[in-house]
């Protein structure tokens, strides 16, 4: 080991030189790398194009900034009368959807096993031919009804076209993944109209929201945010109040003036407790109840039997002391809330947002509370939205084959005409597996991803794998598309024409029209145009039902109705149109256009059309009930149940009892409280899990936007992941600390998520946001977080079969 000095020197110098050279090289590399990334974003001619955002039901108008042909910014359309230039974070981030590297770039057919993710590109002609041949085969064998079509997020004309196609083709099995809003059930039960309730939020003075995420993703978020501003700061000297009743301090609850935590699923009981106080203390709107309602007092029917009225039921069953026990809300709070509601002029109750097995009863009770307050058909109250006068398409004349198939019973879960029927693919999946009346032979997924969004996705995946032929019209290879035999990529919004029907909850009609802003860079086609081509390929009566060449023709044909109605106006600056609130009770002067072409051009350039008028007290329009009044006692439901019982050969009572409803007899037809059904026994699964949507992720189809993954929710401070919110007290008993990995386990499945200790959630309750846990989709979503749907699906609404989004769970350290 004796090293000579000379040797050592040499070694030192050499290694020093080596290190220096290496270091210098690296440093130089570093510098040149730094220099090369100085590359600038190419410039170009700037243009702004008016268009619209179709990523949720909000229907926001938008304008896009183009540099040459690149879209670089999406902004709210300042002319849009509802959103006035506002656009939520999803809209702001949506260019990452347009330019997502994981978009499907052309039609593909599956070559490997289902779910193996092996694909082979093919041309549109080949793809459409394959599809048409397959469908023609079904018709030829008289099995047109075995085609099931499922639409996803798409709104407006495209789903209408698909339903039209189903009718012309001959299948009764069309459903949409979004499900039904509970409020539309309430409106149907009490006013005979199966549509979501429109709330005149802007003019309300006191809002009690039963768990409605007003500002974080419900219906039309931008409109609601602006309405809230109007409620609070819009009237000089008066600040309207928002009370949020919810088990969890959601962003909406945080923005409310008062948060009243309560037990999950007991909103209905609370609403009835409030109603009890109003009635018991004589604080209700006597005039409205006397003149416009039915079933408040006990009444005698045609058969001479005395039926219980709403008043008796309330007084007997919903004492605040009793309600306090069920809901966990103190009795004095219930009384105070009811008195405040009565005292503050038009108060309005909203909700629920949905997710429990008793949603219908809850919505019903809440709407009944509105009726007691006289908040029906009154400024600041609950209204029935007016529809837009879009042109009707010519009637479909199904051919003989189609008529025979249409007469077949529809599969459970497929959307039907009567609101009692469930509208859920999960239900349908179960039916498919239990082999109901017949098996589905083909499935069209139109932008839907039931294998991710439906409760109990395992069963859905199983059902998908058993359907012989699955076609997915999708921009991404999402979980359901993995099971498809054929993938047909649709245009992304901003590449395609689309229309925005009126946002849910807005009382007056607003129609947005969005034009394409960028050239589609890939081999994609308009989802509507795919239906047209398919119909053409099938020929005969099916083709006849679609007398249009391209989607723009369909759109123009519909919009011509607006022009012909001579009503409303095209979007304009606020100074020109005035605020759409308070709702006007007069109609607009006829539109000043000489021709439809002129109207159309202005419509496209400004972004849409609005008729901001509303006539209060059109009683025949808003009460389509047997009594022509607001029915506390729902004869609409009674008729439906009787019809169902007749069909089953049972008495109505038997039929109801078979469903396992808690309420019986008259109670079943009056607004009442039905305890939520939560799967799992309390001993093994001590916590109640509620799920919620984030404004940033929605149902999960937006999980592939990195801008949104980075900022899921400010209060949780979690990025790129899923968390479970638990109260620090609950966590203490479980030995769980903030940020720990935990297993959340239900009777159905379990997921691994991070624990977030959140004082804003009731002890004994756990909450998980939806939208994560993708196993497919794109690189930004895959493998991030967990999907709470894996825990659900065991319990459902007994009447419609819609699965509940809540269950019992246990939480343990992972």
């Amino acid at each position, binding site marked *: 080991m004796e090293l000579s000095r000379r040797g050592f020197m040499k070694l030192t110098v050499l290694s020093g030189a080596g290190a220096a050279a290496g270091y210098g090289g690296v440093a130089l590399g570093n510098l040149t790398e730094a220099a090369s990334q100085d590359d600038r974003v190419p410039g170009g001619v700037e243009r702004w194009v008016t268009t619209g955002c179709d990523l949720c039901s909000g229907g926001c108008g938008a304008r896009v900034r183009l540099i040459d042909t690149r879209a670089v910014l999406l902004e709210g359309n300042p002319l849009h009368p509802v959103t006035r230039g506002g656009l939520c974070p999803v809209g702001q981030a949506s260019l990452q959807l347009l330019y997502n590297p994981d978009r499907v770039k052309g039609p593909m057919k599956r070559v490997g096993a289902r779910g193996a993710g092996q694909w082979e590109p093919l041309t549109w002609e080949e793809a459409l031919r394959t599809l048409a041949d397959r469908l023609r085969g079904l018709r030829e064998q008289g099995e047109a009804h075995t085609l099931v079509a499922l639409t996803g997020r798409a709104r407006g004309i495209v789903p209408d076209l698909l339903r039209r196609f189903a009718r012309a083709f001959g299948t009764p099995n069309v459903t949409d993944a979004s499900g039904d809003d509970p409020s539309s059930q309430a409106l149907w039960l009490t006013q005979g109209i199966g549509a979501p309730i429109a709330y005149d939020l802007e003019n309300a003075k006191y809002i009690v929201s039963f768990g409605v995420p007003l*500002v974080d993703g419900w219906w039309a978020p*931008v409109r609601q945010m602006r309405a809230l*501003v109007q409620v609070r700061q819009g009237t000089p000297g*008066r600040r309207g109040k928002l009370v949020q009743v919810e088990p969890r301090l959601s962003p909406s609850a945080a923005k409310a003036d008062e948060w009243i935590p309560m037990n999950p699923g007991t909103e209905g009981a609370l609403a009835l407790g409030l109603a009890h106080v109003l009635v018991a203390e004589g604080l209700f709107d006597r005039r409205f109840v006397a003149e416009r309602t039915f079933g408040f007092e006990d009444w005698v029917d045609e058969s001479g039997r005395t039926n219980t009225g709403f008043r008796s039921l309330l007084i007997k069953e919903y004492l605040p002391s009793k309600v306090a026990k069920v809901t966990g809300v103190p009795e004095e709070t219930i009384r105070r809330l009811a008195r405040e509601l009565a005292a503050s002029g038009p108060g309005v109750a909203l909700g629920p947002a949905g997710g429990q097995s008793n949603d219908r009863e809850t919505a019903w009770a809440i709407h009944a509370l509105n009726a007691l307050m006289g908040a029906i058909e009154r400024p600041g109250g609950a209204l029935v939205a007016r529809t837009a006068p879009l042109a009707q398409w010519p009637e479909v004349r199904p051919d003989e084959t189609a008529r025979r198939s249409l007469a077949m019973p529809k599969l459970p879960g497929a959307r039907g005409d009567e609101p009692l029927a469930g509208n859920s693919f999960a239900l349908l999946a179960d039916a498919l597996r239990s082999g109901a009346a017949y098996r589905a032979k083909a499935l069209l997924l139109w932008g839907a991803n039931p294998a991710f969004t439906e409760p109990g996705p395992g069963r859905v995946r199983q059902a998908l794998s058993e359907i012989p032929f699955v076609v997915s019209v999708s921009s991404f290879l999402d979980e359901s598309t993995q099971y498809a035999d054929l993938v047909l990529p649709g245009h992304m919004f901003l590449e395609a024409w689309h229309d925005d029907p009126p946002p849910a909850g807005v009382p007056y009609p607003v129609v947005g029209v969005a034009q394409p802003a960028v050239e589609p860079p890939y081999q994609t086609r308009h989802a509507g145009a795919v239906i047209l081509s398919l119909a053409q390929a099938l020929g005969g009566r099916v083709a006849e039902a679609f007398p249009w060449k391209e989607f723009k023709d369909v759109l123009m044909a519909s919009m011509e109705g607006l022009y012909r109605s001579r009503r409303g106006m095209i979007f304009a600056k606020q100074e020109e149109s005035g605020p759409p609130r308070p709702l006007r009770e007069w109609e607009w002067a006829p539109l000043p256009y000489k021709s439809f072409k002129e109207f159309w051009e202005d419509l496209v350039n400004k972004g849409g059309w609005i008729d901001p008028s509303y006539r209060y007290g059109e009683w025949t329009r808003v009460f389509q009930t047997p009594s022509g009044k607001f029915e506390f006692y729902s004869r609409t439901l009674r008729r439906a149940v009787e019809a169902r019982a007749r069909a089953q050969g049972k008495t109505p009572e038997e039929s109801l009892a078979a469903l396992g409803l808690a309420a019986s007899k008259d109670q079943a037809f009056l607004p009442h409280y039905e305890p939520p059904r939560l799967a799992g026994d309390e001993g093994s699964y001590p916590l109640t899990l509620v799920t919620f949507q984030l404004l940033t992720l929605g149902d999960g189809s937006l999980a592939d936007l990195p801008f949104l993954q980075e900022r899921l929710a*400010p209060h949780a401070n979690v990025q790129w992941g899923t968390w479970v919110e638990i109260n620090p007290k609950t966590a203490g008993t479980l030995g769980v600390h903030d940020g720990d990995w935990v297993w959340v386990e239900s009777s159905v499945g379990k997921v691994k998520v991070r624990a977030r200790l959140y*004082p*804003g959630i009731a002890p004994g309750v756990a909450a998980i946001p939806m939208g994560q846990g993708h196993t497919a989709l794109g690189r930004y979503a895959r493998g991030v977080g967990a999907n709470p749907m894996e825990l659900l699906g065991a319990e459902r609404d007994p009447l419609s079969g819609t699965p509940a989004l809540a269950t019992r769970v246990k939480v343990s350290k992972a």
Partner: protein
Amino acid sequence: MAEAKGTPRWGMAIDLDRCTGCQACVVACKQENNVPFSSPEEAAYGREMAWIRVMAITEGEYPKVKTRYLPMLCQQCDNPPSVKVCPTGATYKNPEGIVGQIYPRCIGCRYCANACPYQVKDFNWYNWSGFRWPQEMRQSLNPDVSLRPRGVIEKCTFCHHRLQKARDQAAIEGRKVKSEGEYVPACVQSCPAQAMFFGDLNDPETTIAKLARSSRAFKMLDELGTEPKVIYLKEGEWSATPRE
């Protein structure tokens, strides 16, 4: 609104009563200013970048809990602590009071980020612009703003490029930029709840100047004497705010 008199002093007001914490401003800012997104690993490390963030503070114990949302962006201080410490003048206050960050001058010592009490300066840990933007997504980059190289600090500039654009237009029309409405940063433009206001604080007629005088107005960490040009309006009470 009248034309600005003298040198404008651009300022922002954020009405916390309106703000719903939706983060549209955050995303709009990132889209407008080419702020890169992070990967899950780096985000977990606290390295995601944003020039404006919505900060949430939850206080209290169940059932008396309150969560407050507070959009936090560069306060564009009149007396900015970050500018004082910058060794090269990469961070400086321009004549209109906007605190700029000159990327080719920045040596990346992060002294300004540490001196700033608002935590609104972000550092480019990686060569984001090179490989973090997939080719497809690079299409949505804004040509008015640079792609910051690795190793420099970046921050909000009140969308200064928008001011310049407005000023060019005004100059061609032979006038000055209006003190309100003509030049608006991306966050203010995007706010769905219209909780953000922007304009010249020197013009007493602007909405923002009026809001600054409102009884609800307060400044963040006012006691530090940084003299922010971002004004917050307290939550929970009604006040006469000018019409939108």
